[in-house]
């Protein structure tokens, strides 16, 4: 059956990517981040989400199979 880690990893990697890029694009937009106590919460949260997504992807069956094939 489908390994759930694959869709989870893929989805959170995409989420992470979207939000990290948005965070980078909004660096210096201080007015926007007043509500989050002056922290660029998109950048931080985006990087965390992206990391989580990539870890899940790395451990998912399809990716592990792919890596194994390449090593052989």
């Amino acid at each position, binding site marked *: *059956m*489908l390994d*759930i880690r694959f*869709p*989870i990893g*893929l*989805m*959170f990697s*995409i*989420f992470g990517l*979207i*939000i990290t890029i*948005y*965070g980078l694009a*909004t660096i210096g937009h201080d007015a*926007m*981040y007043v*509500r*989050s*106590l002056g*922290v660029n*919460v*998109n950048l*931080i*949260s*985006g990087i*965390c*989400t992206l990391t*989580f997504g990539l870890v899940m992807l790395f451990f998912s069956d399809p990716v592990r199979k792919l890596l194994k094939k390449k090593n052989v």
Partner: protein
Amino acid sequence: MDTKFALGGIDYLVMAVYFLFVLGIGWALKKYMKNASAFLEAGRSIPAWVAGLAFISTNLGALEVMGMTGSGLKYGMLTTHFYWIGAIPAMVFLALFMMRFYYGSKARSVPEYLKLRFNEKTRGLNAILFAVMTVLASGISMYALALLLENVLGWNFNISLFASAAIVLAYTYLGGLSSAIYNEVLQFFIIVIGLMPMAILVMSDVGGWSGLQTSLAPIVEGKGFAGDAWTSTWKYTASASGNPLGVAWYGIFAGLGFVLSFGYWCTNFLIVQRAMAAESMTAARKVPLIGAIPKMFIPFLIIVPGIAALVLMNDPLKGFALPMNNAGQPIYDYTIIMLLKQYLPAGVLGLGVTALLASFMSGMAGNVSAFNTVWTYDIYQSYIRPVTGNKDADDRHYLKVGKMATIFGVLVSIAAAYIASKFGNIMDFLQTIFSMINAPLFAVIFLGMFWKRSTGNAAFTGLLGGFLIALLHHGLSVPEGATTLVKGGWIAPLITYPVEMAQNFWTAIYAFSAATLLTVILSLLAKRTKTDDDLNGLVYSMTPKLDDSAVLWYKRPWFLAVIVGIIMIVLSILFW
């Protein structure tokens, strides 16, 4: 207070990605749905950790998340009793002592276990009440979702309702229980990742835990409680009046920790179904324990921010307020919405909103996927099919029935959602009534599993009797200040409780006691109807002990249970 969010294109992009994945998972699972067992029982092939996360996710619907944050504001850390004493002992008990009978008996549902252990009519009673309860719950949650989308995102109520129903229908129709479980796991991670930035920001805004304690003291003392009443769990439970929950420690122990939580976690098929879908007996027994670990930490994500909201509300500089209802009372359920709005800029806000959307939809999908199983196996296969055709017809027929039941369940939920929008009180009332079956159901299943002498007729009478006692108690008691008969006292308001929570606890305690007494007495008066052989695999003393020696010691359910117990004790002491 304006509840509208100003969402940007980025937030809609995040939401769109989520919907794409939800439907994609259903699509990817479609090819595995070859027979009824694959569709309705996930083919008993789900790994323990996936089922474990789905197990707690099912309970973490959006109404629960919103309600618990609001309760954090109203009752403080005492709300964590619902996550610690009110959940963990029951989950551990289910894992160590009950799962092997649910899983090992080859029953496909909790009502079917009742049929195998007792008789057909006990199953019938449970199955029908359960089926009605699940579509009610899914309808109420659908209504709440559409209302929220209207109030918060400014979407049209009818379109929101039908669009969310269509998405839920699409993925449960395509992938059955597997699809529901996979999406619950997805939902679990989105809730954690989507709400975490808010929880961290609100806590740093109030100066961390110690800052929260300091700022709370004068506010709480103003309400007539000790300064740390909102940040303690057991400290002020010596008397009911010393804590905001209005219940003393023995009430929390017996009412919440025993009757209500065991009735919910150990017998509610919606929950147990996740563990029954596990890939092996060992996996099934580990499911509730794996779920218990994240369960214990969820309060820090949803309850603690609610407590901090009380500080924000009392600090005019923060500009934080809850929306008011027509009677001028704050709507506590909107606490988490207003916190998201307060702290999150576009981008992460999209993730937060998606987290709420996800938990609404997976709550509905959970109900629908439990409904279609009970409908197909416990109602259709045992009552309708024997009349209309061959009882043991091919499996493909039941797959079709299961799929039809999914559509039917969603349609009835939509109808229930519209009834809830017109007659909200009636729906709340019905849900209260139907949930009263849980406590007597636990009594009957507990006696069935651990006392070989209990008989089918006694169980049926116990279940029905306990349910009627619960109804009677609800009809005779009211929580103080209740304005509608929905809250009780519809026969005569003879007993008054300080808070609704206390009334709920006592309803459950009476129902449980009545069901136990009736079942025990009637069983002793009657002859046994099942032989020892019949009860093999169904009753504790009649079933050979499980041998875990082939499993590595740190992978055994007992070992996990000890870890879960230690974490709970440490948390209780830390936040005493």
